[in-house]
């Protein structure tokens, strides 16, 4: 409590101080804000502009305002809708796997057992593996139809080995991404479990609450917040999955694993269609924003709660 008083006194003093010295708040902030403006906001605005332009690098003379032309082509392109579908499949499947598995593992690693620290450290390691490495590792040494260790295991057990990336491409991509991101869910949910409000738990215990009530009224709401953060953050990352696909299936076979980022990459770098790929990029931004909207609201809410504390 006395801390608050000190902090308040500090606040007033800093205001007076501000008037005396005039701390260069704006000058301190400007570099970071300007940098983000130049590297994120300006390009975003340019993407919007290109989306309404006829612009193909192969046909430099055919520039000009396209109106909604690019969007019309986009919305009638089956590959775009397929890519949108793949993106959502990938996000939903990876979310379901990583969050449920992450939760189970977090509950497991929240218990004490011999060598828990080392086991946890090993279990979270996949998160630090570069996505390109993950891709090649799974495609070759693990899931190769003849020489992969999984094929060997299947032969040993009397099954016919499967060419995973050819016959179950989406499943394989989901498997790789889930392997990388389950540790992330595990790590954050575990931190959440370990920061349960002890005082509240003790209070309800003193009030004679049962374990079930304790779990329902304290653990679930507290963990609910953490789950929310995990789901939102992972969605943002899963929406932009690229390197795992680049290193393994290159979007194929056919377009079976072409997600939105890969679709945009192909249209820009192989079809040179700046207008169309910008229109697709706008779709990707809108999709990301649907998810981000909720997360940002949460972060902002958290900020105010932090201020009151």
């Amino acid at each position: 409590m006395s801390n608050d008083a000190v902090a308040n006194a500090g606040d007033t003093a800093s205001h007076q101080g501000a008037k005396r010295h005039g701390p260069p708040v704006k000058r301190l902030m400007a570099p970071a804000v300007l940098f983000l403006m130049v590297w994120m906001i300006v390009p975003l605005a340019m993407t919007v502009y290109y989306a309404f332009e006829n612009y193909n690098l192969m046909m430099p003379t055919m520039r000009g305002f396209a109106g909604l032309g690019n969007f019309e082509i986009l919305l009638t392109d089956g590959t775009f809708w397929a890519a949108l579908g793949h993106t959502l499949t990938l996000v939903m499947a990876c979310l379901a796997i990583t969050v449920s598995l992450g939760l189970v593992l977090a509950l497991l690693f929240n218990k004490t057992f011999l060598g828990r620290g080392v086991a946890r450290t090993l279990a979270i390691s996949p998160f630090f593996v570069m996505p390109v490495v993950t891709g090649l590792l799974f495609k070759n040494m693990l899931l190769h139809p003849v020489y992969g260790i999984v094929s060997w295991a299947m032969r040993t057990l009397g099954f016919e080995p499967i060419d995973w990336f050819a016959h179950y491409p989406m499943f394989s991509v989901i498997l790789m991404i889930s392997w990388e991101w389950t540790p992330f869910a595990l790590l954050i949910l575990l931190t959440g479990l370990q920061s349960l409000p002890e005082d509240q738990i003790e209070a309800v215990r003193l009030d004679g609450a049962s374990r079930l009530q304790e779990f329902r009224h304290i653990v679930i709401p507290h963990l609910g917040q953490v789950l929310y953060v995990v789901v939102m953050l992972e969605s943002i990352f899963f929406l932009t999955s690229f390197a795992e696909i680049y290193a393994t299936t290159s979007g194929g076979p056919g377009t079976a694993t072409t997600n939105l980022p890969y679709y945009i990459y192909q249209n820009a770098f192989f079809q040179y269609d700046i207008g169309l790929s910008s229109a697709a990029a706008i779709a990707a931004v809108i999709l990301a924003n649907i998810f981000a909207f909720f997360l940002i609201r949460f972060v902002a809410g958290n900020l105010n709660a932090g201020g009151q504390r």
Partner: protein
Amino acid sequence: MEQKSSLGLAVIGWLVAIVMFFPILWMVLTALKTEQSAFSMVPEFVFTPTLESFKTALSQNAGYWHYAFNSLFTSVMSTLIGLALAIPAAYAMAFYPSKRTDFTLVWMVSTKFIPAVGVLIPIFLVYKTLGLIDNNWGLIALFVGMNLPIMVWMVYSYFKDVPKDIVEAAEIDGASTLATMFRVILPLALPGLASTGLLALILAWNESFWSLTMADHDAATLAAFIASFKSAEGLFWAKMSAASVMTVAPIIVLGWFAQKQMVRGLTFGAVK
């Protein structure tokens, strides 16, 4: 009973750990084999380890070192520049909060949610005009942009842990804002700044989207080096594994030390 259940837990816990870690372990083992034994229908679990593959991966023309240098240079420089931009901004917001502080912080997070493909095309075209394609500095700037929101948030949350009266005391003693920042606050927040830098370094080193689209040779990073094995089809599995081990090992080890900071940084301080 207690004893038994905790033994059961240990078994399950270690089983999980081994299953999750197995692909990495298998990569390390493959890296220690000869090319023939790496590419075999019956995997060899017992073999005489050799460093041959590491040697080939290191010695080849424009081999590992070229890419490793680019990875190291871009991730270290982007981390340093990121800190140089993030520290003053976070300092201003933590110690001189105004009505706009919350808005600025949230705005910074929101830029993190612009997917990279959303800005890929203009950046590619502008970079092409400016000659920044396949250029270390072009990549560095992108890594800074990618990490800056996270870094500002992290540094901000560490500054918030420093009692405000310390700044007061320094100012009453007549220290300027910059002197206070450099001599008083930064030393106090040093552990926090170090973890911020560590997280930024890990994220930049592992970054693959910009590395694969904006650089193909001169500035190509390890992500591109590994991706160049894409079509190897069994010919160079041991070499590919050796290169991969040298690419991920330093980061996995750093990551082990940065677990807690990862959580704080990647959740924008929402989970500590």
